[in-house]
């Protein structure tokens, strides 16, 4: 199930941004995910304030050379992946 556009994702307990050797990371229970470019832009906006829709609009602006539809699909896919990892909670 894709996340709802008007929900506000935020990092679940025990999930936080970190850094190692100048590489930004999403740290989670017994896991870590390297964040680069778009993935970092997305995770930084999972702050409980941005809605999914706002995240999509922001990234469509930043990556204006990519097709807006494609950007939306990728973001929803990535949020679903983080949700499956239990790294995100979504407030409505």
């Amino acid at each position, binding site marked *: 199930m894709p996340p709802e556009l008007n929900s506000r994702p935020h990092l679940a*307990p025990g999930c936080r941004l970190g850094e190692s050797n*100048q590489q930004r990371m999403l740290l989670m229970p017994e896991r870590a995910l390297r964040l680069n470019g778009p993935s970092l832009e997305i995770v930084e906006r999972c702050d409980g304030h941005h809605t999914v829709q706002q995240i999509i609009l922001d990234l469509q602006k930043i990556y204006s050379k990519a097709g807006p539809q494609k950007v939306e699909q990728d973001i929803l896919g990535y949020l679903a992946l983080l949700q499956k990892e*239990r790294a995100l909670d979504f407030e409505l």
Partner: protein
Amino acid sequence: MAILLFCKRNVLWISSCSAGILEASFRFCGGPDRIGMTFLLTMTPTIPNPLALIAELTHRCPLHCVYCSNPLELQSRTNELSTEVWSRVFKEAAEAGVLQANFTGGEPLARLDIVDLVRAARSAGLYINLITSGLPLDETKLAALVEAGLDHIQLSFQGAREETANEISGTKSHAQKLRVLEWLRRHRVAVTLNFVIHRRNIDQLEEMLALTESSCATRIEFANVQYYGWAFANRENLLPTRTQLNHSVELLKREQERLRGKIRIEFVVPDYYAKYPKPCMGGWGRKLMLITPSGDALPCHAAQVIPGLSFQNVKDRSLREIWEQSAAFQKFRGEDWMQQPCKTCDRREQDFGGCRCQALLLAGDAAATDPVCSLAPLRPKVDGILAAINTAPSAQNFVQPSWLYRPNPA
């Protein structure tokens, strides 16, 4: 409370970028921070950085679990590292690229300086997992641990029913764990319930899931016992039957779907039933480093069973020096040590030949192909062990076996 073994031997440790699709689709527009990646690539040494530090803070433990992953020879309190040495180790670990520390034991809360250790590791920049029985915990201590920077608590359960749990842990422990679960609701920390699975509790998975769903946990680990140390000694009474295993796999597949996005289910199979071996520790000397209570640095929990390996101690050398240069870490790193069929096998970069300690225990040769592999010359030995379990009349009976319980060291 040394249960880490069962899950960590099957290290998943995703460290790659799962935004793969995203990265690819954005490639042509040149994301803003490629510099980070380039930096990493130019800095990558021939030996990969360790990613996780397993800190066995003590072997003291109020539980006596029959599958404990600690060695048969336990360290006493007088040999334990000081707060100062551990604090230095955490700093060196972070500098060497380690991202996470797993505080385990024994029971890590048996250390009176546990809050200071959490604070030291967190200020060194590490993510902190605490693997505990919950027995020495009270709500004040829990609050202090979270305040000091604890990120994730793994609470072990020996079963969903009090009588099973108490039998396996050789102590009355279940009720206290339920109390800890209630306290955890009031603190911002990730919670995993960890169940070590074997023949005598594998039929209780639904009850374990129900317990987890009624709690604040976001993860549950069903980690089948792996057979080393105390578990190896108790293997005849712990290995599940094939029928039990198949049933549990079916059940968990369904439950994984049902709980997607709510509770993450990890499942570790007993590798005696697997077709291919687990990539033990994510490969020898590739991802993890374990420090024993007295400071010896090991490539894996059971490495001390392998004859001829000598281990360096963090009191004498830096972590990076040990990681890069110690003979024990070099011994099975890479592929040069491999025998056939591993040497030319297509899967050698996936499972690294399996587990060296299991090869020693079952084949008598630490460099042999892990005998649980279906391609291993010694696989018939494992099949023999399974045949005995699956045909023995005792396989399903519920008379209490004569367990070899793990004692508490001085």
